[in-house]
């Protein structure tokens, strides 16, 4: 259990400056591409070397770190790290036949590049780690922070998630059928009965600690599951809620990562069947697009909800009976096998 105090989000929507999530930007070239800021906080001499994932991650972290105590650790979840630079280096290997190659693409391509660069720029000598388990990379980062805060209750941590659309992963995912074949708008993402979703990307940062005062949100628990069977998922989810929802409380909102891929609907249907009929249901993948650490966007949207008191209408799948959303359950599914559960509430 821990608290979120500050957040930052660079995404395909207006989430960084002049935040307004009522506006819904649409995909370009079938991708929900991040609106990147000018990265004033990153010195040009360092920015020039960064691939997109790294500059998005560092760019999202800097505003948080400028307003908070020095964190005792930097914990990042990413499936791909700096893979765009991987492809650039790979191209060099092939094009120059293993001749004289420039090293910067190699250095920036390492999966720990985001966490390392944040540490380097802020001269942070604390704990530094990168979690990579694809659709659960962010969850394991959160669990890491949860465990550390239980051991060191007075510490602070920066927990983040970054994944970008790169030449590397876009064609890999597309060729495997994870994106819609047809050209669609994210505004109608859930309406087509077809396979695939829309590519998205984002960098999110959360400053967390064990202190309630001044917090935006309270994270009760985060849990994960690797399983293809939706009944096993349902049982796990029921156990999760029973274990972590405080006595006498009820879930007001279920936020899901339903993404328009009809092959995954069985998981979301099963998840929805776990909560009572008067619980509101909302979705977020039309905002973020689909990418491994997208559940972080769901969490960020909940933080916005808790601060602003409401969600944009375009997120609501089913209205609920609660006048205000106090307890929220986030469920996300990645490629049918990875399931994430986050239970949070107003602090």
């Amino acid at each position, binding site marked *: 259990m821990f608290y979120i105090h500050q957040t930052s989000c660079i995404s395909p929507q207006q989430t960084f400056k002049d935040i307004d999530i009522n506006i819904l930007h649409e995909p370009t070239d079938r991708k929900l591409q991040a609106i990147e800021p000018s990265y004033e906080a990153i010195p040009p001499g360092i920015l*020039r070397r960064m691939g997109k994932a790294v500059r998005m991650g560092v760019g999202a972290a800097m505003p948080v770190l400028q307003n908070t105590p020095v964190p005792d650790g930097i914990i990042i979840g990413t499936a791909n790290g700096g893979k765009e630079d991987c492809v650039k280096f790979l191209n060099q290997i092939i094009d120059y036949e293993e*001749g004289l*190659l420039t090293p910067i693409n190699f250095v920036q391509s390492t999966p720990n590049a985001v966490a390392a660069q944040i540490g380097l720029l802020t001269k942070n000598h604390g704990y530094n780690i990168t979690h990579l388990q694809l659709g659960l990379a962010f969850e394991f980062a959160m669990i890491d922070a949860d465990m550390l805060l239980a051991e060191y209750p007075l510490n602070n941590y920066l927990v983040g998630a970054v994944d970008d659309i790169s030449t590397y992963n876009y064609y890999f995912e597309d060729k495997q059928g994870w994106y819609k074949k047809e050209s669609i708008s994210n505004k109608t993402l859930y309406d087509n009965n077809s396979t695939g979703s829309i590519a998205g990307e984002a960098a999110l940062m959360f400053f967390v600690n064990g202190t309630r005062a001044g917090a935006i949100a309270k994270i009760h628990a985060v849990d994960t599951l690797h399983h293809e069977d939706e009944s096993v998922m349902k049982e796990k989810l029921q156990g999760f809620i029973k274990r972590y929802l405080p006595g006498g409380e009820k879930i007001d909102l279920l936020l899901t990562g339903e993404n328009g891929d009809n092959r995954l609907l069985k998981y979301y249907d099963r998840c929805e069947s776990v909560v009572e009929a008067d619980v509101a249901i909302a979705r977020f993948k039309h905002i973020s697009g689909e990418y491994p650490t997208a559940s972080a966007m769901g969490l960020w949207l909940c933080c916005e909800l808790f601060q602003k008191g409401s969600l944009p209408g375009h997120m609501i799948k089913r209205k609920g009976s609660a006048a205000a959303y106090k307890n929220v359950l986030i469920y996300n599914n990645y490629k049918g096998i990875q399931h994430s559960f986050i239970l949070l509430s107003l602090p």
Partner: protein
Amino acid sequence: METVQLKQQLKKQIVEFLNLLSVNPDDIKDNEPLFGEGLGLDSIDSIELIVLLNREYGIVIEDPKEGRKVLVDINTMADYIEKHRTK
């Protein structure tokens, strides 16, 4: 190629190759230190510049430490290129 032209070309190449976003090639002085102060490049840039010299001018410098003696400023680089270029 005239030395003045070479230096101009070299400045453009350095800015492009090292992705020096905020630097105008024309603003780089010929005797401005490339490393430390001046342009503020670092050890990874020195390796990158050795690659630049190889790709654009066919020059081979095996040891990065030896390379640093060449990579002092635009003047020393241009001088070395004129003496050793194979392209």
